[in-house]
């Protein structure tokens, strides 16, 4: 056992602390090349990660950078810096700690490269940028440890892939580098360990005591939830009661728009004027900082929030977590619940508030999964090649490189361990020449091979552009919202460009919990004024809509197989029984399709349980097939569990619709022209460095006509269909927005067992779908028809009609 130095023992004793077993274990195993710690929030995880560093640095002999700490949030880096200062100052340790994020002033960043601190706290993007400089080897000289915090969150995104590629670079500069990962509870620790370690090195996993099981229940309300929608307005009074009974309540929502509406309603019902705040990613940074500060000082009784509060900043005295809307994913639910009661060994308390009748079933399934410690997660597949392309460009910024050496380095990254040399070379070729079938740029290659075989940037000035575009986070185009004042009023946050374009002066919407009136657009900023109304239009935020996980969908289907549901509230229980009488309930090993006339139209409801994104894609593919089969579909709407299609002809036979080969052809041919695919392409093209979102020229004038990425996509699809980026786009379409992987999974699961029920009228389970928003008209001819109608209407209105 590695003994704790006396200085540290005394300090621990003075605070009345003793080492947790997992903290001691981290110290004992400080020479492991990679080590993953899984501990619940509040388990002293950060100290466990830093203890070996502090002990090693205590004698003041180490020169230069010793430990690099990486977290997904800038705020977390600042928070950790504050927390580390306490032991370092109190023990008078000779340790310099600094953070480095996008907010760090340029002068300090420059100094940090020449004279780095002992401990540097940073984000994946800032680290990637650091490795892009020619002097990277000098900056990182002597680096011994890297601590990756909240690695479970990073491992789910391309940010994690970028980080691990950067670590492979660091490992070459500092061969003795030790890697430590800190993670919340996850379903598959081994998968994260294999991402963290230098492949094929081993990575042991330390499991801290998870503490007692959380105390979770569904919130009981006198009123039944509505049939559809996500607002949960019916539960406002009950939630208000809970806020009164607790010190601090965190109220999580799945989307920013829902959070805004809920906060607005809560505020209208807040008769006692309790201090309640709102926090989400579209709010202005200062506004968020104010809420965070008030929260840390314990001044707020409740915070309405979204995933922006998912990660581990310590908020102190939260004693209740409320999740509004079905959690969609059991793992995220468990991690959110962990935000309550940060005292180790005290159970966290949480309440689930289903927003509609179907979510009652979903919440119950999630509760049962949480009790059973049955967490979900989808494996992410091999390392994405768009991130690799960016990594190659970053490597080129740092100076000439040898392709074989870089390949050898890249495959030490867990996610890229199986990358073939051929695939690597295709990415390198894309970075160098664009990788087009028509070789037009031999003279102007981005990367050139020198006579000695090394690759380098042809034009060294290109490195500035590449550095400006480092990162894998895709912000959709948003516009800042400000109060209208003579000199630019208070910033409130941002809204999507598409939403801003849909506003006319006088329209009202919610942002940051207040209703504002749209005044106009100035210099790419949305100017608003205060408004006293009670019924706003709602801002469309870019927050992701999560699809219900495969595992949770399976639990719901398993629950449907029960004879009765005594654990469900009566309203929902009766609803399911009625469905069983009139039609049947969907089953796991077959696919239920209901076909019925309603309101003068024919309808088909497909219960695929494949999650929102896949059901949406299924709607696109099936309506296309139905058009080919002469069923004249008019439109569809999708939820996490079903797609409802309406049209002119009844669906009598379903077999031809579900031919996997035909659906797959649909994906390859006409779906490639769809907007969702274009968005997928845009993300990959900007990560891979084909589209640069940031340029030194300012876009202020709005005169600068920027070309849409859709044009590049269409051109590639037409002239170069086998291009690397289209291949990457097809691969990305298996998950994410298109999620074709889950359609394949569903078709494989049900096989030939397609159960088409022809019914006289709409069924209880299908009825809520009629209330869903987000209907998609069948595109193509329909869009031209709408355009014709609208332009004619405008001509008429202007008195210009022929």
């Amino acid at each position: 056992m590695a003994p704790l130095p006396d200085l540290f023992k005394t300090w621990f004793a003075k605070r009345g602390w003793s080492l947790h077993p997992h903290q001691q274990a981290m110290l004992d195993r400080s020479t492991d090349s990679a080590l993953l710690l899984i501990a619940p929030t509040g388990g002293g995880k950060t100290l466990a990660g830093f203890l070996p560093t502090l002990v090693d640095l205590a004698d003041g002999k180490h020169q230069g950078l010793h430990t690099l700490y990486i977290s997904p949030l800038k705020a977390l880096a600042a928070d950790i810096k504050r927390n580390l200062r306490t032991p370092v100052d109190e023990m008078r340790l000779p340790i310099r700690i600094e953070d480095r994020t996008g907010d760090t002033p340029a002068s300090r960043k420059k100094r940090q490269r020449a004279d780095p601190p002992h401990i540097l706290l940073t984000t994946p993007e800032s680290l990637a940028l650091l490795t892009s400089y020619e002097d990277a080897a000098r900056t990182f000289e002597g680096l011994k440890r890297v601590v990756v915090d909240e690695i479970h969150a990073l491992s789910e995104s391309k940010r994690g892939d970028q980080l691990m590629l950067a670590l492979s670079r660091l490992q070459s500069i500092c061969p003795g580098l030790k890697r430590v990962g800190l993670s919340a509870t996850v379903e598959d620790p081994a998968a994260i360990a294999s991402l963290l370690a230098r492949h094929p090195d081993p990575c042991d996993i330390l499991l801290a005591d998870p503490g007692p099981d959380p105390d979770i229940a569904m919130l009981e309300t006198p009123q039944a939830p509505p049939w559809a929608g996500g607002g949960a307005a019916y539960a406002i009074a009950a939630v208000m009661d809970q806020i009164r009974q607790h010190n601090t309540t965190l109220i999580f929502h799945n989307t920013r728009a829902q959070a805004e509406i809920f906060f607005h309603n809560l505020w209208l019902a807040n008769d006692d004027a309790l201090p309640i705040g709102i926090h989400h990613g579209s709010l202005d940074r200062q506004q968020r900082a104010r809420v965070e500060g008030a929260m840390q000082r314990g001044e707020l009784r409740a915070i309405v929030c979204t995933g922006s509060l998912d990660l581990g900043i310590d908020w102190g005295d939260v004693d209740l977590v409320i999740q509004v809307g079905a959690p969609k994913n059991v793992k995220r639910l468990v991690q959110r619940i962990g935000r309550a009661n940060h005292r180790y060994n005290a159970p966290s308390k949480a309440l689930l508030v289903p927003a509609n009748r179907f979510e009652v079933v979903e919440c119950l399934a999630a509760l049962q999964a949480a009790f059973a410690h049955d967490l979900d997660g989808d494996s992410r597949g091999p390392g994405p090649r768009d991130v690799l392309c960016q990594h190659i460009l970053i490597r080129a910024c740092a100076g000439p490189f040898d392709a074989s050496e870089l390949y050898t380095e890249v495959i030490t990254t867990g996610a890229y361990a199986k990358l073939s040399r051929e695939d690597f070379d295709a990415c390198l070729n894309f970075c160098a020449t664009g990788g087009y079938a028509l070789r037009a740029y031999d003279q102007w290659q981005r990367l050139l091979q020198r006579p000695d075989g090394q690759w380098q940037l042809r034009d060294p000035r290109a490195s500035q552009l590449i550095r400006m575009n480092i990162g894998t986070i895709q912000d959709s185009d948003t516009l800042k919202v400000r109060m209208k004042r003579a000199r630019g009023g208070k910033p409130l946050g941002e809204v999507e460009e598409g939403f801003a374009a849909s506003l006319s002066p006088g329209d009202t919407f919610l942002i940051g919990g207040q209703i504002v009136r749209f005044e106009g657009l100035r210099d790419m900023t949305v100017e608003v004024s205060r408004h006293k109304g009670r019924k706003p239009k709602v801002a469309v935020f870019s927050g992701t809509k999560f699809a219900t996980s495969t595992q949770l969908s399976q639990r719901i289907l398993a629950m449907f197989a029960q004879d009765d549901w005594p654990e469900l509230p009566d309203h929902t229980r009766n609803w399911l029984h009625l469905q069983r009488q009139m039609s049947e309930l969907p089953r796991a090993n077959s696919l239920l399709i209901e076909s019925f006339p309603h309101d003068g139209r024919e309808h088909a409801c497909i219960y695929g349980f494949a999650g929102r994104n896949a059901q949406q894609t299924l709607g696109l593919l099936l309506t296309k097939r139905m058009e080919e089969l002469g069923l004249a579909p008019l439109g569809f709407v999708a939820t996490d569990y079903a797609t409802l299609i309406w049209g002119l002809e009844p669906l009598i036979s379903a077999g031809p619709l579900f031919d996997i080969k035909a659906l797959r052809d649909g994906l390859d041919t006409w779906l490639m022209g769809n907007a969702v695919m274009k968005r997928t392409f845009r993300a990959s093209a900007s990560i891979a460095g084909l589209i640069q979102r940031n340029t030194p020229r300012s876009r202020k004038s709005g005169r600068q006509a920027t070309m849409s990425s859709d044009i590049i996509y269409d051109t590639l699809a037409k002239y170069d269909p086998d291009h690397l980026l289209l291949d990457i786009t097809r691969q990305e379409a298996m998950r994410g927005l298109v999620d074709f992987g889950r359609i394949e999974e569903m078709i494989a699961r049900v096989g030939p067992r397609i159960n088409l029920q022809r019914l006289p009228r709409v069924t209880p389970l299908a009825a809520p779908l009629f209330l869903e928003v987000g209907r998609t008209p069948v595109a193509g001819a329909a869009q031209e028809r709408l355009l014709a109608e609208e332009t004619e209407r405008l001509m008429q209105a202007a008195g210009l009609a022929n």
Partner: protein
Amino acid sequence: MNGYNFTLNGTDLTALGSGALYWPAQNLLCVSDLHFGKSERRARRGQPPLPPYETRDTLSRLEADIAKTDARMIVCLGDSFDDSAAVGALLDDEKLWIASLQAGRRWIWIEGNHDPGPVNLGGAHLTELCLQPLTFRHIARMGEKGEISGHYHPKVSLRLKGCHLSRPAFLIDKTRVILPAYGTYTGGVRSTDSCLQALMGPGAMAVLTGPVPRPAPMPR
């Protein structure tokens, strides 16, 4: 012909869905802002190498319009090339393609801000072209009458039952027409932009390009 017919300075003209303008009386086809060689110029300047197919894509659309109208005179209204060096950088088969389109036709390159010098391809190179009662020039001038210009790449956005549609568009009023950009790799400036608002008189129309050109009052 599939187009929107209108009158400028007493002359009958047709706005085609492709973004080209046809003058039947002169059998003249006018296109603006082709921006040939845009991808080459960007790559030359160290920017990301875009798919190098825009010149052939633009040419194939131009070829189709020429075939459809059988125009004997072609006016390229400036910014035909992304810069002067891009002319030289055209691939041989692209140069041949242009030459074959020029054969048997009067071809005029009007100079634009991107391509001010003469080009070493066939055809005449002019600052502007007066064919009474119309004048063809790259950038519109205040106070002119019967003027056909390009330069601004105008586009129009409309809200259609919940979804947005943005299309390149002709802007037409009593004194002038501003053509949309014809080149494949071109973005656009919204008709609500202040410079377009200042140029276009009251009652100006927008004709949205597409399978069928659609007229609408110019969004203000």
